[in-house]
């Protein structure tokens, strides 16, 4: 039998029996996944409801440096701490997500080494704890010197958290030189007037 003759063994498809012609399952050989390439470090805005990851593995007590002019946060390692002692703050980094599904890392203020705190910090900590279980929005009330905290009511679904580890998330949040681990770091040099 040549190539150009009917191969009798080939079954002829029947268009009047479409069940056999239906594609089931995933017919596409390729797909895509959304990559997390940026993770802002910031506090929640007054216009967003947010949640905080409840898992203790997704929080990190640490020291950060905030360059307010540039609205940039730097993570400071113990090695670099002596040269920045006056400029840094003790915080607890918490993983957050707003109602639009956007992730961010919130540096929640912590009491200083002497245990002193203030009403702003206390209300922010309270908000972060409440946001572990509820959708929370916080607004600064200057007259009262703290944050007003709102809890969303109604049946709002829980957020879907990324599968990455906190270590991986930290690397994304503080990539591109946002980790200060020595006095040679350009930001340290800049603060020292170099």
């Amino acid at each position, binding site marked *: 039998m040549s190539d150009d003759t009917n191969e*009798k063994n080939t079954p002829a498809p*029947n268009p009047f029996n479409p069940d056999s012609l239906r594609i089931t399952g995933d017919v596409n050989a390729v*797909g895509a996944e959304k990559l997390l390439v940026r993770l802002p470090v910031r506090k929640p805005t007054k216009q967003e409801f947010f949640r905080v990851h409840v898992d203790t593995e997704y929080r990190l007590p640490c020291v950060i440096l905030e360059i307010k002019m540039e609205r940039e946060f730097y993570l400071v390692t113990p090695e670099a701490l002596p040269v920045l002692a006056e400029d840094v703050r003790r915080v607890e980094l918490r993983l957050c997500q707003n109602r639009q599904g956007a992730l961010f890392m919130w540096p929640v203020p912590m009491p200083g080494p002497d245990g002193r705190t203030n009403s702003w910090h206390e209300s922010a900590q309270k908000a972060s704890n409440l946001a572990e279980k509820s959708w929370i929005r916080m607004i600064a009330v200057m007259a009262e010197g703290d944050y007003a905290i709102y809890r969303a009511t109604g049946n709002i*679904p829980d957020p879907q958290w990324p599968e990455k580890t906190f270590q991986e998330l930290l690397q994304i949040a503080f990539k591109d030189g946002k980790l200060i681990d020595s006095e040679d770091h350009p930001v340290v040099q800049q603060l020292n007037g170099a």
Partner: protein
Amino acid sequence: MTPSTSSNATNTGDGLGRFPYHQIWCCDFEFHHVDGDLPVPVCMVAKELRSGRVIRLWQDELRQSGFPPFDTGPEALFVAYYTSAEIGCFLALGWRVPERVLDLFTEFRAETNGLWVPYGNGLLGALNYFGLSAMGTEEKTEMRDLVLSGGPWDANDREAILDYCQGDVEALQRLIPSIACKILPKDDRSLLRLGQALLRGRYMVAVAHMEHCGVPVDLPLLDRLRESWGHIRNELIMAVDADYGVYESGTFKMARFEAWLVDKGIPWPRLPSGTLATDEDTFRQMARAYPAVAPLHELRHSLGKLKLNSLHVGADGRNRCLLSPFRSKTGRNQPSNAKFIFGPSRWLRGLIKPAPGYGIAYLDFGSQEIAIAAALSGDEDMIDAYTSGDPYMTFAKQVGLAPPEATKESHKDVRNRCKAIVLGVGYGMGAESMAYRAGLQVAEARELLRQHHETYRVFWKWAENNVNVALAGGVLRTVYGWPIHSGSRSSLNDRSLLNFPMQANGAEMLRMAACMATEAGLRICAPIHDALLLEAPLERLDEDVFHLKSLMVKASEMVMGTLACRVDADLVRYPDRYRDEGGGEMWDRVMKILPARTVRVVE
């Protein structure tokens, strides 16, 4: 007269032998017709590719034969380009239609859907696309004109037309390898593709049946409308514009329209230049959002006299035109707006009227896009919403906008807002379009859309993955294989890709229903987006409606698997006429004007 046949066995040498059919017939008809009437076959040429046998039949020979001059059973493959035209000739001749149809037009569309086709989708375009030799356009036009002249033709003309027809058959033979390379049976996948191609061919036969049937139209009334249109136009403007004051000497004035919008507080979309957008789409959407705009929209849409005259209605009072299957990217039919009774202004559909002793029924799939989205994505919450019978109200309840005991009546406004979002997603609309469509603030539409994302996460993950697949160079396919390609030659955006599975599988559903219905002997007048128009003698109307309903439900299950689509039916019995919800007011206006003019003529 003995039919002209010749035999010149050919070894195609291109693997066509792998087609699991004893015979492969390439066939082409030449025919002429008056707009709206049935085709009048002039000649037919058919060539069997294995044996090389050629059959050439002139019109008198065609009419003498009560059956096709070749095998049309399941062992023979019938190949044509835009097969509905060929099958239309079969039906006009009373011939038995082929059972296995490979339409090279549908397969060329499938091969290139979503891509730029430089030479068009006709036979010449397909040949040029693949770099195959083709007859010159001028020569083809000349021969087509000769055919369309309707005769009489002398012996030379006859030979020339038959040769021209045979030229198209030879072109089909050249085209098959290029188009069929993916469906030649060599493995399970290509066998599946061949089966899916035959399914499309099966639909082209159903299209021929529907085009043959046509939509019953009140022809005497249409003639009166055409004769009186100038007078009606002026009266209409006067009558409608009394509430608007936007016309001046019969001309629509933008400044006056803008003043009316300001007065009514209606926000209207603008062009980048700042002027008001007054295109048909904008008017249609705004008329839905703001009912006060509807009569003006209907008036503007109705004022094109050309459209009234372009409507293709045959001498037997049937609206027949090309249904243009597979013309849209989603595979839906795309008949000419001007020629199709369901295309022009909605009020004109009042011309649809069953013949004495008959009734018609408009059966459509309820919330088809939502059902498909729910079923194919497997989103249980969306499935619950659809099966509740009111997906809009259920969405409102799911997101907490309405209490569990809320009903369509108790929470009408909330339901309408949710409806705009749920439907908008099915049509691939963004928040802005949804807002315009439903008369919502854009911010509110965005919030509702966000809630839709949050409530139907499984659906959105599935939908966004579809877009990614396409943009990553993959091919999106319906459950029966209608594809859309993206790539460097594509002009697709992510919204149309997101929308594709719902619309294209909806098209599959309707095609399946149309096939089963026409094959069951039901008289289907036309497909209309997600609906079929049925005609039946009055004494059998209810029975046929029930039959068609069951076939449409079955078709929905064939596409969606576990879920069935709801089917709604509107029946019209002679002497009543079809009345479209959106065009009823305009129809009444026109009818009020029409008799007045007739009386004057009589005087």
